[in-house]
């Protein structure tokens, strides 16, 4: 039965992916003739015509659309207009560079925010106040300003850390710290709210009434139940984190996926833009499916109910 629910979610995800591909196709055709856009009117009209024929832009839009779908089904997004490499390979290669920032950031956020949020909910003392002030600050300061502040403080004023590019371990510190800002605030707040709510549940009272040690109550009964809704949010957030890497990479000149997309947007490199949009969509949809699956795996109630 649980399989049926998952299958339905998978079909829904597939439909969304199809809509995504359709959107990418029609948006890139919306401004008129792609060949004129690509060449900026700089070359001879006969060459433009030849190029148009070669790329198949003279065919009816429906024919082009079906061909586009067929190519994407084979994983072919065309070649980058700038570097003439296949767009798919470029995106995959650059996403790996971005993941070097995204994965440590994600692990550190989970390691810090979940305990901090729980402590803030259980003991409303100094730690709780600190956690909430931190959350308010990181929630209000946009990542590009946070990055610039870090550069100003640790790079320019103190001169401790390198402020751009890749290289040694020190090059990772500032970008990862910047990338952590907003998710840290978000997960701390979420976890605090969840734990506060779980604490009012009856099974917590029961656990206390039967004489369990408070640490055991918190660890086994409160934490476990509070984690469930957060798993769902994390699944969807996989794509969001890669998205926010776009800005952080621009601040620190990190040659990853974000830098690739911004360059592509500025140079009208459609194949790369389309491959990037498709990849992010695939990541987000897979992420939320995996979260659904994990949710059922962790919570026996859901497995049985559905």
């Amino acid at each position, binding site marked *: 039965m649980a399989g049926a629910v998952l299958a339905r979610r998978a079909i829904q995800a597939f*439909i969304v992916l199809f*809509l995504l591909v359709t959107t990418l196709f029609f948006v890139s055709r919306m401004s008129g003739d792609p060949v004129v856009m690509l060449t900026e009117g700089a070359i001879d009209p006969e060459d433009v015509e030849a190029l148009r024929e070669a790329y198949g832009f003279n065919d009816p839009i429906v024919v082009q659309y079906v061909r586009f779908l067929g190519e994407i089904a084979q994983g072919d997004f065309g070649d980058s207009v700038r570097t003439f490499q296949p767009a798919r390979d470029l995106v995959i290669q650059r996403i790996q560079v971005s993941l070097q920032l995204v994965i440590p950031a994600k692990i550190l956020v989970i390691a810090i925010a979940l305990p901090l949020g729980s402590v803030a909910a259980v003991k409303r003392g100094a730690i709780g106040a600190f956690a909430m002030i931190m959350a308010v600050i990181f929630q209000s*300061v946009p990542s590009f300003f946070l990055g610039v502040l870090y550069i100003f403080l640790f790079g320019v004023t103190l001169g401790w850390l390198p402020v751009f590019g890749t290289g040694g371990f020190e090059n990772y510190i500032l970008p990862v710290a910047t990338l952590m800002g907003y998710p840290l605030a978000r997960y701390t707040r979420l976890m605090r709210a969840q734990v506060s709510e779980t604490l009012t549940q009856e099974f917590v009272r029961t656990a206390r009434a039967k004489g369990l040690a408070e640490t055991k109550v918190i660890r086994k009964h409160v934490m476990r139940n509070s984690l469930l809704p957060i798993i769902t949010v994390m699944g969807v957030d996989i794509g969001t984190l890669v998205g*926010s890497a776009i800005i952080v990479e621009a601040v620190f000149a990190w040659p990853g996926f974000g830098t690739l997309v911004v360059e592509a*947007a*500025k140079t*009208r*490199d459609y194949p790369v833009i389309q491959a990037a949009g498709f990849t992010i969509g695939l990541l987000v949809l897979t992420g939320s499916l995996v979260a659904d699956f994990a949710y059922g795996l962790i919570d026996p109630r859901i497995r049985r109910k559905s």
Partner: protein
Amino acid sequence: MANSPIDMVGGAGGGGAAAGAAPEAFQVAAARSRWDRLWNHRMVVGFVRYPPAAFALVIVVFFVSMAMLGPYVITWDPDKPDLRSALQGPDFGIAVNSQHVLGTDSVGRDVFTRILVGGRVSILLGVVGATGAATIGVILGMTAGWNRGLIGAIIMRWADLQIALPLLLMALTIAAVFGPGLHILLILFAVWFWGPYARISEGLTLSVKNREFVEAARTIGAAPPRIVARHVFPHLISPLLVLWSFSAAILIIIEASLSFLGVGIPPPTASWGSMLSEGRQFLHRASWLAIYPGLAISLTVWSINTLGDRLRDVVDRRQYL
């Protein structure tokens, strides 16, 4: 307060028919009294009595009034270079109109003036974008909730699509196609940010549509559009107001991010994001160029979030009373 016939019916329903999708808070009261509560003066007083919320309100009112009165208040031309006074440091000591309070940028434009003018663009985009998105989202979401068949499914998949292709990436795609621009951004924010509104509206419409007062309206012959507008929509107002404030803050951040990346508001028009991006190059000798626009964004976002949080607290508490 709850003594109109509609409220009596709604109250007696108690929400038993609701699919359990809506928070209890929304099942307590019905149409007419909700408006009364929202604009109850005690609530307004309680709203402002929390000091951070009062401070946040002052900041928002400041930027909004500057956005509206801008041309009458500023004395420096925000876009005109004046190379003789380039890169002057902040000068807090002297009256606002005689010196450059927050200094000047690399071509001698007054930073304070440009922050005020940049705020105009940011706030316009945040407020108009969030309002446009709310309008589209509420109409589509209520349609989806009312009409659960194919139409509802199609609408909700489109809402999912907006999560799969985040606004920032969509904006970059659009910038590649059309080039940067204010109008493009405004339209994009409305058509690519209605998902959350549709999801809330769909859920609440579903939870309300089988209640007795809706049944009663249908029995006396009201047409569906009328029922949805008069009997379902009032239930959505307070959660929508809260969502509206948060989404305005997100849109302000996204506009600033796009301008920072160089694909938002085209120069020379001032925008907090592009000012910050320009200021980056002068961090070592003119740090104010990056710090003040950044502070302006952070303060505005903090204010809107604080007001949104407070709004949610106040609305929730009053619903339990």
